[in-house]
């Protein structure tokens, strides 16, 4: 059931006469936004509560709420965020900034890509900061220099919403985030929640507000409203549908990217685990390992997601279909031979820990088992760093190790290095040296220039990280900044 969008048909001025119905509607919305029980705000308190709302949101705290002004927009946006029942499909797909597709910065001296100018103009028209006529300019008519038409509107928006006034909108910056937030209710109202299928435009239902105390005492009732501007309304719907088209293009792009030839990991692990296993197998891992990992992963997922026996059975059948057990290690022995054998433990780790999203410790155990089998079969070769690593993972108790790792991450267990140590680990360079030496050797043996360059990049990164640690960088810090 679609709820009626929050609208105002007249301004609310604490120092002037107001339409009672408008006042009660706005007070109700404010209560919802600020988590108060319905009816908590009486008309007499509305002015103060509005001012408090404005000052906490960076708006001008004057208590005035204009029909399409910043305070109304902020209340509507917050209400929209609170009351929408499901995530809109475009937001689910595109995430942050989904209501306003931006690929580069817009504003004075910025990249001002034509598509970005087009979308920004439409967004600004919907928030009332740019005339709709300007926003209706076709996409291919936008040029970089047209940013000058948009910059003042961005500045107006920034000024009204208490943001830094620089006339620039950067992807995922504060202005873009605010626009994305403010556009939510208006887009939902005019284009509907699903941008891939915008709803048919409907004429807006106008209401005639009547201020409780007429300006001029008269015996005759005087409606206090301008006749509705249908042309303006039509244009606005057109703008909203245009922005929906921009969002749709972004969604299509995103979907295409996801459906590229080699098919990225699936969203639903239940239906895709078999297919992924097949792909991985095709890429050169012995089938037995892939199958073991996939079976273990299915069991883990079944436990985690509480699958019924039927679901579990169907997933196993799917796996059997894509990766039959009978075909173990026939042609795959060939692909895993010689140099590829050395890569097996690492690849198995990768498969488990990353593609299937499980734990590297478990992967290590399986990889080590595989190694042991190889040793029994007389296939063991000189130990590579990867294989040693797999052994290291595999020969210890998984649970204990898992707990220990978690504790280490929290900084509760002392380790030979890490957050418990004073920062500026002078031994970091020394510790990294064997790995650097190992890579040096591999660089010398690398058959191609490409291989050499890739290894050189790895060597540099190890040296850089060690140097940073030696200089005393706090290694938990950057991760936090990024999130």
């Amino acid at each position, binding site marked *: 059931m679609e709820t009626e969008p929050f609208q105002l048909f007249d301004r609310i001025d604490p120092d002037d006469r107001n339409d009672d119905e408008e006042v009660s509607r706005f007070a109700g919305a404010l209560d919802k936004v600020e988590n108060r029980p319905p009816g908590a705000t009486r008309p007499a308190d509305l002015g103060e509560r509005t001012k408090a709302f404005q000052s906490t949101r960076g708006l001008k705290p004057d208590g005035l709420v204009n029909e399409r002004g910043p305070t109304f927009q902020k209340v509507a946006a917050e209400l929209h965020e609170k009351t929408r029942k499901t995530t809109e499909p475009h937001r689910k797909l595109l*995430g942050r*900034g989904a209501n306003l597709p*931006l*690929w*580069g*910065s817009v504003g004075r001296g910025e990249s001002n890509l034509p598509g970005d100018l087009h979308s920004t103009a439409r967004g600004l028209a919907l928030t009332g900061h740019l005339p709709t006529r300007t926003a209706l300019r076709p996409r291919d008519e936008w040029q970089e220099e047209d940013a000058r038409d948009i910059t003042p509107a961005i500045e107006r928006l920034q000024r009204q919403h208490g943001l830094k006034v620089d006339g620039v909108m*950067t*992807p*995922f910056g504060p202005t873009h985030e605010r626009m994305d937030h403010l556009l939510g209710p208006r887009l939902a109202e005019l284009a509907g929640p699903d941008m891939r299928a915008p709803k048919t435009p409907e004429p807006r239902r106008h209401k005639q507000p009547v201020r409780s105390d007429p300006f001029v005492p008269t015996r005759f009732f005087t409606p206090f409203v301008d006749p509705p501007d249908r042309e303006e309304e039509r244009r606005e719907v057109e703008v909203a549908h245009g922005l929906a088209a921009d969002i749709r293009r972004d969604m299509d792009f*995103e979907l295409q*990217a996801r*459906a*590229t030839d*080699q098919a*990225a*990991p699936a969203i639903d692990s239940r239906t895709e685990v078999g297919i992924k296993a097949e*792909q991985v197998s095709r*890429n*050169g*891992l012995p089938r037995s390992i892939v199958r073991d990992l996939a079976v273990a992963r299915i069991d883990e997922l079944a436990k985690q997601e509480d699958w019924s026996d039927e679901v579990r059975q169907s997933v196993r059948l799917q796996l059997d279909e894509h990766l039959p057990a009978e075909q173990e290690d026939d042609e795959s022995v060939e692909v895993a031979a010689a*140099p*590829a054998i050395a*890569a097996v433990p*690492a*690849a198995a*780790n*990768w498969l488990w*820990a*990353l593609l299937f*999203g499980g734990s*590297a410790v478990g992967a290590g155990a399986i990889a080590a088992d595989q190694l042991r089998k190889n040793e029994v079969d007389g296939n063991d070769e000189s130990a590579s*760093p*990867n294989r040693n690593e797999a052994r290291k993972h595999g020969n210890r108790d998984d649970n204990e190790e898992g707990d220990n790792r978690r504790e280490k991450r929290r900084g509760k267990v002392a380790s030979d*290095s*890490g*957050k418990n140590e004073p920062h500026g680990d002078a031994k*970091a360079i020394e*510790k*990294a040296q064997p*790995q650097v030496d190992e890579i040096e050797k591999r660089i010398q043996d690398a058959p191609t*220039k*490409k291989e050499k*360059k*890739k290894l050189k*990049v*790895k060597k*540099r*990164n*190890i*040296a*850089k*990280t*060690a*140097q940073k640690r030696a200089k005393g960088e706090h*290694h938990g810090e*950057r*991760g936090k*900044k*990024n*999130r």
Partner: protein
Amino acid sequence: MKPSDLMLDPGKGVGLIRFGDSLDKLAEDLAFEPVSWGDDSNRASRYNEELDVTVFEDDDDGEGIESVHCDRYLFYRQQNLVGMRFKDFVVLVGEVPDFGDIDYFDLDDGGGHFVFEFDRHGLQVWVRHQTLTVSTVIAHPIYDDDE
């Protein structure tokens, strides 16, 4: 230079940093300082502390900038790759890494790193705890297959 300027242009560069350009030009135009990250790269690297980006020059062939190491920001398709979950990253780039290229290093900074090469995008990513974190995303030119 702002974080959002660090946009990956596969095989060509990262924002204004273009592969093949000289480091001196970079230091002149953008706020990059010479840095020492190890004995062999003293001459051939520049660092921007604010963005946590290190740029390395090809010190063998003198072919200009060879790799850009982004430790905090690298934007691709409007998303910062650093800090992204590996699974999301693979979805975003739509490329499966080469199995032969997977490496594992314990940098002693809180966990082992898996290193993956995404040749079509000219990316080397360092993954720890399934997340592209610290020193993770390295852009380099897209190399020719055989030499």
